[in-house]
């Protein structure tokens, strides 16, 4: 005996490694909001969104949050969480080509397709019109639509942890319609992560029933 304890001296590597892996697995399985009670988030600060159209999109978020019964401010001081984001696309002049009349189009694969008044995106599949209408070769008009793309995220004010994040893009006849729809879709995603506040209890006035 040399006085050394073999059990104490032999490092328990396999046990330590297993424990470490188990802890790591636990950590990755835990949701990001595990320690935060998201149902207690009632006051949200909406910061200005970056990018063109940011103020309009932020106003739309404020309108939707207020309509859902949440308290909203534009300062993060007293808020439970902070909503911010970017407007990555805010264009009112997306052009689509409308070929008038019965048009024969040839796609990139060389296939010939015939359609009545087809509409083609300028960035989409390469389609070229053949033929003429009333002696006008490739009679066409440009249709203009708007598009808005919004990235939004909600972070916990005190911990800074991101509680929710999503992105949505939409097209509309004008910018107002497109932004409204994009924010509306994002709010649906938002309320899947953050519970809506319960509606206030209805107070029934008058004589109580016997």
């Amino acid at each position, binding site marked *: 005996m040399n006085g050394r304890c073999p059990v104490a001296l032999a490092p328990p590597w396999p046990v330590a490694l297993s424990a470490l892996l188990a802890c790591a697995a636990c950590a990755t399985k835990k949701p990001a909001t595990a320690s935060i009670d998201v149902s207690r988030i009632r006051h949200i600060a909406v910061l200005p969104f970056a990018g063109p159209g940011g103020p309009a999109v932020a106003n739309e978020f404020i309108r939707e949050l207020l309509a859902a019964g949440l308290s909203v401010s534009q300062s993060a001081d007293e808020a439970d969480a902070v909503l911010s984001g970017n407007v990555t696309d805010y264009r009112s002049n997306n052009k*689509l080509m*409308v*070929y*008038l*009349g019965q048009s024969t*189009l040839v*796609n990139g694969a060389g296939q010939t*397709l015939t*359609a*009545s*008044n*087809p*509409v*083609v*995106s300028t*960035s*989409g*599949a390469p*389609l070229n019109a053949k033929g003429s*209408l*009333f*002696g*006008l070769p490739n*009679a*066409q*008009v*440009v*249709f*203009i*639509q708007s598009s808005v793309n919004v990235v939004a995220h909600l972070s916990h004010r005190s911990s800074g942890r991101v509680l929710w994040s999503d992105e949505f893009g*939409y*097209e*509309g*006849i*004008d910018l107002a*319609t497109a932004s409204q*729809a994009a924010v*509306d*879709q994002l709010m*649906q995603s938002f309320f899947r992560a953050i519970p809506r506040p319960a509606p206030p209890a209805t107070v029934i006035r008058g004589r109580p029933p016997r």
Partner: protein
Amino acid sequence: MRRLNASPHRHDRFSTRRLAFLTLTLVSLGAIFAGGVPARADALTEANRHYRTGLAYERLGRLDQAYTELQLAANLNPSNAAMALAVGTVASHLGRWDEAQRALEHSIALDAASCASYYELALVYESKNMDDRSLENWHRFTLLALDDTLKAVARKHIAHLETHL
């Protein structure tokens, strides 16, 4: 008694007048028919002229003038779906949603396969919160569209609108 005393030539006089009246009517109708067909052809020629001018203005970005010319064309040839669609597209570009809606609905009534009309009308209905009508137009568009990018746009709009119904 008065009938018995009536002139024996009275019946003949009435027949002559009636014959003259009928002849005059037939001649007038003939003149109308004879002149009507060229008038119709003239109207179509005139409509095509306004249509070409309208499209030329549209290419130049002179949308007000394009709209006026295209409206004249569509009024002279109200059974042409492409002209109605052109009016609707330019009206939408000018922000005249109600006029755009009417013209696009008319173009679909004339040509149920008018692909662009469904796309544009779906967007017009969406801006007016007429979600069920918009949804119907998006569905029709997906059946007719050739462009995969726009088909994907239509499917996204369908998914969004269905959450509201």
